[in-house]
């Protein structure tokens, strides 16, 4: 059975001398069962015989997801992450990839009001959900107050983690507008800023929480 072949890539990679046991390969193996679980809830057409998967174990699915207020019908593969779809398929490159293993937070977006790591959500899991990315925050030249505060307080250096830091801040302040210093630090502790502009980030977020 094909499924059985799908379950082995981790071991195969070790043998072939490849350094990494990648999360993606792991998902390729695991993806079938995960996908099956998700598919039972989602409206997905059955796989056609002629859509031969390029890589073993890869299935295609169609998801309907609202991204930045717009509904998308997306053909995705079962091992693609939401981050893959945002950056690669939709060109929404404001959401960044740093670790790709849910340990840095650079890919933080908001799903149904909650900050999530887009690198660790399979695209098929975003089916029927509402996603907001950094691109939706400003209205043309009119910046969101969080963005304005980040600029004013110099709450960034290289800026690579900044969109995610702002999305985590938004998720926090949307649900807790008068967040305390402890709550701010807790909410942003999943976002690594290697430049460590943390004192300025704290100041920017605190200025908003104190104004609310």
């Amino acid at each position, binding site marked *: 059975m094909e499924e059985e072949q799908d379950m082995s890539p981790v071991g*195969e*990679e*070790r043998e*072939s*001398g*490849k*350094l*990494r046991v*990648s999360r993606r*390969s792991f998902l390729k193996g695991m993806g079938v069962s995960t996908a099956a679980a998700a598919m039972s809830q989602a409206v997905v057409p059955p796989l056609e015989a002629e859509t031969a998967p*390029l*890589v*073993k174990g*890869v299935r295609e699915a169609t998801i309907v997801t609202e991204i930045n207020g717009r509904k998308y019908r997306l053909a995705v593969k079962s091992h693609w992450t939401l981050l893959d779809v945002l950056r*690669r398929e939709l*060109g*929404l*490159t*404001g*959401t*960044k*990839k*740093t*670790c*790709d*293993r849910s*340990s*840095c937070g*650079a890919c933080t977006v908001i799903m149904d009001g909650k900050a999530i790591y887009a690198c660790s959500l399979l695209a098929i899991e975003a089916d029927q959900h509402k996603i907001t*990315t*950094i*691109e939706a925050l*400003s209205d043309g030249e009119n*910046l969101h107050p969080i*963005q304005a505060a*980040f*600029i004013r307080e*110099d709450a*960034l*250096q*290289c*800026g*690579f983690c*900044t*969109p995610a830091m702002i999305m985590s801040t938004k998720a926090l302040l949307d649900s807790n507008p008068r967040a305390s210093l402890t709550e701010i*630090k*807790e909410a*942003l*502790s*999943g*976002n*690594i*800023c*290697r*430049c*460590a*502009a*943390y*004192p*300025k980030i704290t100041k920017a977020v605190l200025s908003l929480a104190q104004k609310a």
Partner: protein
Amino acid sequence: MISEFRVVGKPQPKLDAIEKVTGRAKYSSDYVLPGMLHLKILRSPYPHARIVGIDTSAALALPGVKAVLTHKDMPAYRPNPWMPLLTDVARFVGDDIAVVAAVDEDTAIEALGLIKVNYQVLPFVLDPEEALKPSAPKLFPEGNLIGGAPTVVSRGDVEKGFAEADIIYEARYKTPTVNQAPAESRVSLAKWEGGRLTIWDSTQGPFEVQKGVAKALHIPMSKVHVICEFMGGGFGDKGYPGRHQILAALIARQTGRPARIELDRDEYYVAGLRRYAAVIDLKYGVKKDGTLTAIQTKVFANSGAYAQFAAAALGVMQVPMSVYRCANMQGEAYTVSTNTPATGPFRCVGHPQGTFAQEVHMDIIAQKLGMDPVELRLKNYARLEDGDQFRKIPFTSNGMEECILRGAEAFKWKDRMKVASQTGPVKRGFGVAVHACSHGGMMPGMPLSGMVKVNSDGTVNVFSGATELGAGQKTTMGMIAAEELGVLFSSVSVTTADTDMTTDTGATSGSRQTITGGTGVKMAAADAKNQLLDIAAVELKVDKKDLSIRDSVVYVAGSDKGTPLDQIAAKAPGGVIFGRGVMKIPTNVFFHGFAAQFAEVEVDTRNGHVKVLKIVAAHDLGRVINPLGAENQIEGGVIQGMGFGVSEDQIIDKASGVCVNPNHLNYKMLTIKDVPEIQTIMVESVDAVGPYGAKGIGEPPYSPPAPAIANAISNAIGVRFSELPITNRAILMGLKAAKA
């Protein structure tokens, strides 16, 4: 006092902040091109192995694979003296064996598994001192000690110095391999079109990449266009042409399709240039009054498989041989190849390692003498007149004493012993460390340049080869140009790091660009201003020397009524004014970033947890160009340096040579929750050479936190630590050993 400056010294948010907060900033990793191929590297599973055979036919046969290259296909070019592009001898786990180019990432990854490599596994060595033994496996035919002999530096008579000493203290210190871990990985996208190569690269040195690629592909520099408009950090790792840019360029040329490579995070951990681990032996002789009589040191730098610097160990040794004045010094530096990942700079070349060792050593000496650690440092620090004893060049300014005194005052150092007796399990402690190391070099033959264009409406474009890697280089260049020209900062736009549009002013490394790039821009702005005043003198029929420009308005001396700059700029004979700044650097000049940092910590003796409560960071910046950005730099450096002190360690398994924590989860960086109160003090010693007296601030904040924290921990619990990082486990082990 009213500042003589209009722009310099005023807090300025970043010029490119809007792009960054909106997610519109396009980093090199954000570019996609139609038909783009994706590159993946086959990496060695062995720390040391000869490739006896390699069969790529199955990988090449996989639909979607467009190229597979191995060492046999590579030009002789090496990114550094030891590193081949693709290797026929694997020298660390993760060494680059082959590259696959395919239509998508998944296919490339699958193709990697189809390459058959026949390895002849060789014995390996991971430790630098082991690697120096005659029986050790050799990475290179010439042996593992780079240069074949240690570098020996001496001054005075070290034996005489020890004979004069009342106390001699000797100890060994160790620092681990640490990772720059910038948010953006190493990424390159190469496009070959019309005989010209364009590379979007995440690089601190666009011109270094341009030169390297031109050399590797045997094409003229004019045919290589390197762009890095936005960059997700570098911290030293990305200052040089590496393997990946060249591989992308080769594939793009061979296939005629754009080729993109981005190292996955686990690859980045092993495939970049890590900060080399160091073993540092220090032996200091000191009189009862605290005067240093002799400094002897031996440094072993573990430079990994491919050292970016032959002088890696010398960089460490520079610290004990230059920070304090001492007539008698002797040092031996060993830079050693081992079967571990390649190494290079990370917020300095060797100074964080050396500063940790020296500042803990000095603290112990103070304790032995019964002397205030601050007093000991004040007594011995190298004065302005001493100059840089290591490089034998004068200091361009020296704010060390002010850093120590103002830092101690802000920290209330004198009150530190007034803490109530500590009976509970959580102990409080206080520590200090100073730092004085050369950075931001101007060396003969090194590029220094900048360009300024004044448009017919009086607005200004600045072009600098500096890379904006997060430290605010764009803003700094814009501020310097605005100050020099006398224009409003809001009228200035800045273009950086584009080899077609800007000029080489050295890689953005070594805390350099405020000084070198800044000087280039300042000279260019002065040149443009001179041309503007020539035009104004004719237009306004006045003597040129009576003219000045302020806030984009031209004034004649003695009159408050000015002429808007656009009216003058519009009269430029060529329709535009173009200012050039370029300088032949006559002699070696190094800028010294003096600093004193003070740390207050709490150590929980039950679980070994160290909580840093406060850091006071006093730094000599020469002149502060942008106080907002400078403060951000200092705070960021302090926090990164704290991580070096208590948590960061890239661990290589001794049995297999495998890096066991190549990810952001197990490589422990500090988060926002670990950040203490940080008070920055900016000392302005007004440098004799830097623009407006400015010096760099990129690297200096990083080195002092680790020793200041180590000293504070010792002050709290009475246990000394000579090895980094000082983790919870280390604290508990230290407490246990002290009890025994």
